[in-house]
């Protein structure tokens, strides 16, 4: 069975591509990006299509690349009756996500201070491998963060009430069950609350380089030459351990409920069973923890900006999750249905018809934040209703890797990468300079190409391009 091009930017993986597929797969890429999709990624799309209760298509966004379980960029929705939930569709870094703060500052005023500012941010926001926070959360505070996420953070004095309107799920997803979070996850999570972590996570000072849609940009509060700050991180060790622990339980559930899975990472349980409920309750804890985490980091970022630019107003433009499973209402064959939508390395991209978007953006759609890789542009898009028909309201989450980490380490050194970025006028701070090599800009697909596909499909439209001035990495 061959993959078939069914429209510009849409490729179909037919039922029968591998045995047991219940629905076709769909990969949303341009002809040029199609060349970069590895056979393993297509197999992963087909694997997801075999899971019970899957609705519509097993999908891969334009940044799709090889993952574990679902591909990275994978989206799939499952029926409440007869469907499943799987940590393979969420990943270990539950609610890894992106937050964008907009300032009222001009890049020309900030540029001369960029190194000072970056040093101060690097100091204020703990980062790096196994980094522990300034916060020293108590057990009780940890539980509150699991239960109420960003809402709890605001109560503790991090950020302001109005920030919550600008977070997906208002920064606090219902359904958290801390009793399903094990001792190990708590032990990892407690000291790490309020830390950026490492790997591809970052805190970046950016300049708005180009506005594509003046009207929407104005409503989002964006203008050319403006300084923005992007925060990319997730639920840290708490989320990783929650996933690890429940994967163990769900691997046994697969045998118990006699589900045939083509990849062990797709371990799952039928919705409505205790195993499914327990995983969902624990996953929501991690999701809320991640929102609290980004809220705390944003607060410290505001403090730093206020020190150097007194009265500077860093406003939250939006905060999106890109590794999560959620209960959402969607139209299936003309009828409204509650579905468990899994997005793994994919961003929700709801259009104006959805009630979930902030009142301030009424009539527009939600901001879709697509971070670039280190040193390349990030994009702000605006979700469109067409995404509801095509992708259960989803878009890509980044640019997608094309080069393996080991290959990157053979080709570049951290030192060279840093020097190249500096030549491009981008300041960098990192706790592990050796790790810069594997995040070199060249290891990712060009972010503009990925964004073009999303725009051309009409899932979300381009609003602005942001370029980095300074990056703080773990």
């Amino acid at each position, binding site marked *: 069975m061959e993959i078939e091009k069914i429209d510009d930017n849409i490729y179909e993986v037919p039922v029968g591509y591998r045995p047991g597929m219940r629905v076709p797969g769909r990969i949303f890429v341009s002809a040029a990006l199609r060349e970069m999709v*590895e056979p393993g990624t297509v197999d992963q799309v087909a694997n997801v299509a075999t899971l019970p209760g899957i609705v519509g298509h097993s999908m891969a966004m334009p940044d799709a*690349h*090889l*993952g*574990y*379980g679902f591909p*990275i960029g994978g989206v799939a929705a499952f029926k409440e009756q007869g469907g499943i939930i799987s940590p*393979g569709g969420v*990943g*270990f*870094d539950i609610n890894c996500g992106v937050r964008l703060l907009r300032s009222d500052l001009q890049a020309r005023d900030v540029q001369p201070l960029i190194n000072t500012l970056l040093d101060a941010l690097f100091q204020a926001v703990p980062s*790096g*491998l*196994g980094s522990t926070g300034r916060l020293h959360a108590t057990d009780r505070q940890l539980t509150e963060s699991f239960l109420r996420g960003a809402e709890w953070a605001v109560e503790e004095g991090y950020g302001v009430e109005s920030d919550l309107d600008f977070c997906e799920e208002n920064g606090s997803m219902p359904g958290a069950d801390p009793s399903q979070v094990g001792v*190990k996850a708590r*032990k*990892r999570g407690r000291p790490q609350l309020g830390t950026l*972590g*490492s*790997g591809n996570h970052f805190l970046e000072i950016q300049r708005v380089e180009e506005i594509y849609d003046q009207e929407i940009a104005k409503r989002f509060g964006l203008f050319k030459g403006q300084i923005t700050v992007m925060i990319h991180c997730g639920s840290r*060790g708490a989320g*990783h*351990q929650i*996933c*690890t622990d429940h*994967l*163990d339980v769900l*691997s046994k559930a697969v045998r118990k409920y006699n589900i045939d899975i083509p*990849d*062990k*990472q797709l*371990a799952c349980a039928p919705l409505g069973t205790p195993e499914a409920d327990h995983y969902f309750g624990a996953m929501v804890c991690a999701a809320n923890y991640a929102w609290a985490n980004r809220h705390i980091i944003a607060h410290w970022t505001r403090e730093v900006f206020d020190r150097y630019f007194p009265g500077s107003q860093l406003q939250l433009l939006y905060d999106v999750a890109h590794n999560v499973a959620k209960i959402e209402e969607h139209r299936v064959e003309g009828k409204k249905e509650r579905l468990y939508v899994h997005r793994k390395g994919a961003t929700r991209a709801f259009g104006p018809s959805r009630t979930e978007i902030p009142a301030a953006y009424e009539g527009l759609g939600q901001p879709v934040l697509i971070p670039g890789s280190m040193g390349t542009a990030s994009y702000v898009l605006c979700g469109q209703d067409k995404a509801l028909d095509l992708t259960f309201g989803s878009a890509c989450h980044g640019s997608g*890797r*094309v*080069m*393996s*980490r*080991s*290959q990157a*380490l053979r080709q570049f050194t951290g030192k060279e990468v840093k020097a190249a970025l500096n030549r491009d006028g981008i300041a960098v701070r990192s*706790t*592990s*300079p*050796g*790790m810069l090599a*594997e995040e070199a800009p060249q290891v990712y697909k060009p972010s503009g190409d990925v964004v073009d596909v999303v725009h051309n499909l009409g899932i979300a439209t381009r609003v602005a391009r942001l370029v980095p001035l300074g990056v703080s990495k*773990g």
Partner: protein
Amino acid sequence: MMIPFEYLEHTADVKFRAYGTTPDQMLSNAAAALFGAMISPGQVKVEESWQVELEAEDLEDLAYQWLSEIVFLFETESAVFSRFQVALEEIEDGKGWKLRAEIGGERMDPERHSFLAEVKAVTRHKFAIKKNERWCIQVVLDV
């Protein structure tokens, strides 16, 4: 001579195979492969030791728990490791496996330890144990 482990190409993550003449040796080598993805073992002095005891119904579940335990210890102990000695024991009547291990390493020192990657977790994607002339485990790490 048998190589203890080897890394295979994977676009986003780290994939390896570790070998052993016994399952004990295979799991010791797998731990070294996991940690070697984060930091070169030459940078790690053996100054302290940690004991691990685990039990599982089958060898595969036990291997998954063991490798996950190393990630957990790395974070919660703020320590780096370079020596792994695993001893396995089959529980009577084939009811499962017991693992006892000693891990050697030292506390993390950001001044001296330079990391190559952060292993977030051990995945179950293509996770497999095989025994032909020797034991082999295949693992994909989320980094």
